[in-house]
């Protein structure tokens, strides 16, 4: 009990300090008639987190954003795994695609969003593609890294026993890459939420997800509600990140060093 408290105490103290500074700033540093711009924690609690209308809106949006994130992430995983495996199998695929994966990673998403509207309109698909672009990179790269770090002796062992390429992939390369792939998936999962909210902010179409809510609250100057939406966006990112971390841990815990302690 005492040990557990000692472990979480620093984080709790940090949170308390941030809330205290926030409260102080909103009441003491901002002049009275501008206080609506920086509502204090109390106001966010009463008008946002504890307000039934706001929470109904946010709950509906949270579901839409979660769906969008997971859908885009799913596409990113499928394509990422296919490309990662192809890069392992054919060196030319790696040489042909790697520079563009890096470029895709570096491209400012908001700058290409207008291009996407040309091809996909303002649809769910356009938003999904933003998610894919943002979340994609870690998947093929960590998968490839994990597969390439297979012990050379194990490759010899499979060769000596006449194992074909698919057998090697299934029984050697892929399982060997799981710890590294899950490290990448965790990052991609967090990024997918960012991608979803960026996509929603830009496209502003269809039923409102958290991105649209954030935009609407800002436009209507509903700042306590805006803060609430931001808090839930972060929580969603943390939840998806932790979920993939948990799955990865369950899969590799019995054999991999990373799963110790």
């Amino acid at each position: 009990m005492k040990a557990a408290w000692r472990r979480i105490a620093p984080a709790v103290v940090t949170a308390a300090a941030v809330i205290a500074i926030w409260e102080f700033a909103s009441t003491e540093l901002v002049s009275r008639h501008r206080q609506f711009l920086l509502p204090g924690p109390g106001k966010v609690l009463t008008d946002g987190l504890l307000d039934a209308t706001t929470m109904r809106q946010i709950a509906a949006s949270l579901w839409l954003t979660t769906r969008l994130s997971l859908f885009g992430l799913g596409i990113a995983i499928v394509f990422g795994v296919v490309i990662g495996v192809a890069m392992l199998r054919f060196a030319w695929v790696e040489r042909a695609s790697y520079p563009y994966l890096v470029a895709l990673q570096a491209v400012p998403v908001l700058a290409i969003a207008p291009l996407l509207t040309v091809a996909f309109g303002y649809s769910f698909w356009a938003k999904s593609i933003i998610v894919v672009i943002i979340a994609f990179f870690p998947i093929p790269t960590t998968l490839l890294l994990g597969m390439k770090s297979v012990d050379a002796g194990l490759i010899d062992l499979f060769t000596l026993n006449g194992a074909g390429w698919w057998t090697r992939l299934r029984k050697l390369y892929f399982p060997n890459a799981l710890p590294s792939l899950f490290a990448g998936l965790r990052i991609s999962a967090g990024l997918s939420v960012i991608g979803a909210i960026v996509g929603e902010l830009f496209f502003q179409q269809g039923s409102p997800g958290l991105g649209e809510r954030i935009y609407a609250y800002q436009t209507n100057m509903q700042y306590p509600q805006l803060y609430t939406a931001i808090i839930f966006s972060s929580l969603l990112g943390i939840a998806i990140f932790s979920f993939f971390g948990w799955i990865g841990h369950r899969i590799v815990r019995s054999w991999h060093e990373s799963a110790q302690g």
Partner: protein
Amino acid sequence: MTTEPALVFDAVEKTYADGTAALRPTSFSLNPAELTAIVGPSGCGKSTLLRIAAGLVAPTAGTVRVVADRLGFVFQDPTLLPWRTVLANIELLSELHGLPAGERRRRALDAIESVGLTGFEQHHPKQLSGGMRMRVSLARWLTLEPGVFLFDEPFGALDELTRERLNDELLRLFGELGFAALFVTHSIFEAVFLSSRVLVMSDRPGRIVADITVPFDYPRPQELRFDPTLAEVAGQVSAALRDGGQP
């Protein structure tokens, strides 16, 4: 003896693409149920020789003939699949050869018993000691009943006591199963204690500079380690190793 040898090296040579000579023309043959040790300085091409015998590396010249229908190769490291349990690791090879599940299990359990790992079937490699991992590495090949075994310094990384114990067990398996074996080691003592013949290699690029017979029958009792004749043979091997570099 007129029996056909299990493994024949005929003027086998290896030069790598970058011009490095790894093995000078080497000829020898290994009889069935014979355990031959190979000793030589580091980097002399012992491992290359084994890799050529296994077909993992193609010789630049010369021919290799393996008569046994299956060849087992125990590496320096245990090279186990860390995500598989002991049992699943030992089933791997028969799985790669497409044996039915029941047969795989039966062979694996037999092999586990013969290397003394009963009770550890469900452990993962990281839960085992170095010596136990090496036993798994050996046991997985036993499931295929190879007629020829290649050993590449398998016990080199183990402590003295574990190594002795594994040497005794290897000799027991050798007596029971009657395979032929090439045993590469950098321990002169281990070479002499295990084998009936020691091939001594020169510095890189390696060639065989001495072929020394070890005048003891099998089974070999543990006390043989302290036999003066054994020490004498070890002395001959050691002298041959020292002279190996000279023309």
